[in-house]
């Protein structure tokens, strides 16, 4: 016999119940009430609607056709005012409707902080489409918005409003944003990212009153600070909407109390979603609501199932802010933390370990491995054996492949891909096999990635793995064929695992070749000497011939020799010595270089130690014209001679060159110092350029004049030569510590951002620490390689001469 099912509330939870019922061909005549004037839509996607990335039409789950096809009687825009349990009827503004089974899905109501002015026009909450539209409308005229509440919803509202051009301030009562999902460090990164978008964040800010006469005009804080506001969004939290249930005499605690079958204290009345309380727990995220919906549908179809709350994870749907949190991440006795930070990339990962299991995870900046960590938490996996490299994610465990596609391929069929809808890899594979060969088809058939959408990439990867060539996704480029790791991975491993030798790296990073190749070895050699100057011993055999033989190899196997001329200044004696050497060793070509040096081209391999010796005797050292290191500091004559010169550019150039020479860097490093903005030393196309002005020194970085031509960007202006020295050393050291091998400064700057470099240099403690590390490294490396090589000249002369023997 057909039963009458009345549903109060057309939200995501009750919508899912109906889907299950209709899929199960359950025999119900459904009447659906909704206070909103529309049916079920994907409420999670309101944030993209607010930010303009989607429209309402994009997020409708059930349209009029769907309700009609399933014979649902809809009363939208209709409030249910009472439930009569005796008569088994509900009363609405449209009259009385009787039921056999009643489903309460009234959801939640936003919590309104009880302050003066809370009812003024312009004060809105953020729960439904009407709120969203109100915000969109308010944003049309621009102006200032204050969002009260720095939780998930508040921040999504703030980001959306900022995206629509409003000047947004977020007020948050606690010490850091999203304190329920994030720890302090991740909260800080999130705050920084939001501030980059122009959003002002005030933590520990308690609202005293909302000001205004006819409409909202401002917000007053407890500390008497006043903020102007044309719009105030209240997003401090939600509470279950239980009024109807309470009035009907159902058992209600904070929410409507239900058992494991989602039944209320009245056996004919069920409840689902944010309005329920189960086992003392309330629910606000979609995944458990969908679980409830499934169980509830079974209860109605009399095939009872049991609802058990699962471990939950959170992601923020603000484009560009990648964060993930799951489990319990409070510190405590018996709990240990594993923390990984990569400030350059704004990446933070923290795992909380208890009894060899991961019980909590917070990730910011790079959440690509979040599913894997979430799996460890959910399955209570024993991580003792992989603890050392756990924080780096699945790619580093037991030789598991780091290609994300292979990692996806390796996932078992029951691995959860879509957390919102509880869709496993196997279900997606089955759907693909059944013909759903694109993301849209998969979404409609399995619901995978159809709710919050953050697993879209993962679903695409499953598609790619299953379909093969038809679906190509970009992957991070490994260093070379010897490893699956990227340069960034390697630098991270070297620092965090304290890898201090080539074999240690090869071992720890699972090198596929016994001793690397000509691509990875020079990179590794640099990373190791830059990160561990005291511990690592430079390996000449891992250097390109130029750096091994301290001269530039030419196409005929001869070399070029360039003595250093500090700041481009030389003397008659030096010039004489160079001329003598050129004649003595029959140097075919003598050329003046672009970096203000003299190049002796065509010197034979076996003559190198001798010509160096001669030049050393005249007081000259290697010019490192061959190195990934400091090349030259070019200068103009500055205030010594020039009528326009503002500072002693030559003297400063010489000082800089004497401080920096001998240092190894990711790629060549060229500097110039110009004595005035006429810039005769062409400082603004160098890796680091200094332009002297009357009031001091403009230091700019990231120029290039090679395959790419780039003008430098201003790093900072300082007043004294001493500050120039510190800033240049600090930026060089930061480049040494963070850049990828063979990236010039401009490429590095494009990756980390000028802002980040500026912040490092502006912070005087960070600057001083960088300078100290640079100076320490220079105690090892600022040596003349010529003088060192002259005494061990063996590599330059033949091992044996068989010409005589053979002639016999």
């Amino acid at each position, binding site marked *: 016999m057909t039963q009458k099912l009345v549903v109060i509330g057309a939200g995501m939870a009750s919508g899912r119940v109906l889907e299950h019922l209709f899929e199960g061909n359950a025999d119900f005549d459904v009447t659906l009430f909704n206070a909103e004037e529309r049916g079920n839509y994907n409420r999670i996607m309101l944030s993209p609607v607010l930010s303009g990335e989607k429209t309402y039409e994009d997020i409708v789950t059930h349209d009029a056709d769907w309700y009609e096809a399933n014979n649902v009687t809809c009363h939208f825009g209709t409030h249910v005012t009472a439930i009569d349990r005796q008569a088994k009827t509900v009363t609405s503004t449209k009259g009385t409707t009787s039921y056999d089974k009643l489903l309460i899905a009234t959801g939640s109501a936003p919590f309104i902080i009880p302050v003066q002015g809370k009812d003024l026009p312009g004060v809105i909450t953020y729960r439904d489409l009407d709120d969203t539209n109100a915000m969109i409308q308010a944003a049309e005229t621009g102006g200032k918005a204050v969002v009260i509440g720095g939780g998930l919803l508040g921040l999504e509202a703030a980001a959306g409003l900022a995206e629509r051009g409003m000047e947004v301030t977020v007020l948050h009562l606690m010490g850091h944003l999203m304190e329920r999902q994030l720890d302090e460090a991740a909260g800080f990164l999130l705050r920084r990212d939001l501030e980059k978008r122009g959003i002002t964040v005030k933590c520990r800010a308690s609202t005293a009153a909302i000001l205004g006469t006819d409409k909202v005009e401002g917000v007053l804080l407890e500390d008497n600070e006043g903020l102007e506001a044309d719009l105030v969004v209240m997003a401090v939290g939600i509470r279950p909407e239980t009024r109807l249930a309470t009035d009907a005499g159902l058992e209600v605690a904070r929410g409507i109390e239900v058992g494991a079958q989602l039944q209320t204290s009245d056996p004919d009345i069920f409840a689902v979603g944010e309005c329920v309380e189960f086992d003392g727990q309330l629910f606000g995220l979609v995944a458990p609501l969908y679980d409830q919906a499934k169980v509830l549908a079974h209860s109605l179809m009399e095939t009872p199932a049991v609802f058990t709350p699962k471990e939950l994870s959170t992601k923020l749907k603000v484009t560009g802010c990648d964060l993930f949190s799951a489990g319990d991440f409070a510190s405590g006795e018996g709990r240990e933390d594993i923390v990984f930070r990569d400030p350059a990339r704004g990446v933070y990962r923290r795992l909380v370990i208890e009894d060899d299991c991961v019980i909590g995870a917070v990730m910011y900046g790079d959440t690509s491995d979040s599913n894997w960590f979430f799996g460890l938490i959910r399955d209570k996996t024993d991580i003792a054996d992989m603890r050392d490299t756990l924080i780096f994610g699945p790619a580093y465990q037991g030789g598991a492949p780091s290609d994300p596609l292979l990692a996806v391929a390796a996932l078992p069929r029951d691995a959860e891909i879509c957390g919102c809808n509880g869709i496993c890899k196997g279900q997606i594979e089955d759907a693909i096999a059944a013909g759903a060969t694109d993301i849209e088809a998969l979404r409609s058939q399995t619901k995978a990635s159809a709710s919050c959408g953050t697993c879209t990439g993962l679903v695409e990867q499953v598609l790619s793995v299953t379909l093969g060539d038809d679906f190509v996704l970009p992957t991070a480029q490994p260093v070379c064929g010897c490893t699956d790791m990227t340069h960034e991975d390697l630098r991270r491993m070297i620092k965090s695992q304290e890898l201090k030798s080539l074999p240690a790296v090869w071992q720890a990073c699972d090198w596929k070749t016994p001793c690397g190749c*000509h691509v990875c070895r020079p990179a590794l050699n640099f990373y190791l000497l830059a990160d561990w100057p005291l511990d690592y011993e430079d390996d000449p055999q891992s250097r390109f011939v130029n750096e091994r033989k301290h001269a530039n190899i030419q*196409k005929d*196997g001869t070399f070029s020799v360039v003595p250093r001329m500090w700041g481009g200044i030389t003397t008659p004696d030096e010039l004489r010595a160079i001329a003598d050497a050129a004649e003595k060793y029959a140097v075919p070509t003598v050329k003046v270089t672009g970096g203000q040096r003299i190049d002796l081209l065509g010197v034979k391999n076996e003559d190198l130690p001798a010509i160096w010796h001669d030049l050393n005797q005249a007081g000259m050292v290697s010019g490192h014209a061959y190195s990934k290191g400091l090349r030259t500091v070019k200068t103009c004559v500055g205030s010594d001679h020039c009528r326009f010169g503002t500072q002693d550019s030559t003297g400063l150039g010489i000082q800089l060159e004497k401080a920096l020479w001998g240092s190894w860097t990711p790629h060549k490093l060229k500097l110039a110092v110009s004595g005035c903005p006429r810039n005769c030393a062409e400082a603004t196309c160098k890796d680091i350029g200094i332009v002297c002005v009357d009031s001091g020194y403009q230091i700019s970085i990231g120029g290039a004049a090679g395959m790419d031509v780039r003008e430098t960007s201003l790093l900072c202006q300082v007043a004294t030569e001493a500050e120039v020295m510190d800033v240049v050393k600090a930026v060089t050291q930061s480049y040494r510590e963070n850049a990828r091998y063979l990236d010039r400064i401009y490429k590095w700057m494009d990756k980390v951002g000028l802002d980040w470099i500026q912040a490092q240099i502006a912070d005087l403690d960070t600057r001083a620490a960088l300078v100290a590390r640079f100076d320490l490294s220079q105690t090892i490396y600022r040596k003349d390689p010529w003088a060192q090589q002259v005494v061990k000249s063996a590599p330059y002369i033949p*091992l*044996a001469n068989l010409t005589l023997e*053979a002639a016999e």
Partner: protein
Amino acid sequence: MSNWIDIAALEEVPQRGARLVKTPHGCVAIFRTAGDEVFALDNACPHKNGPLADGIVHGKAVTCPLHNWVISLETGAAQGADKGQVATYPAKVTGGRILLDADFLQQRAVA
């Protein structure tokens, strides 16, 4: 019959490195791998005659310093997509000394 001649102590050539031996018909490069094996090849890349002894030695291969051709030390053949061949000569280590076959080096002149 081989005519092994003593060239130098193994230590004279660095691990993952090379040294040259002068012969009447050009230089021969003596390579020493990380595993202390030695190989003797003409010191000229088949591509543009780059000095192989100045290359980076990895595994049982060397990368030419001029244009990064990779040459097998065992066979003298260019690896990967490149096509070319370098002459190789018998070499061995006995009692910590590097030995080359003088007859073979002689034949080089005739070949």
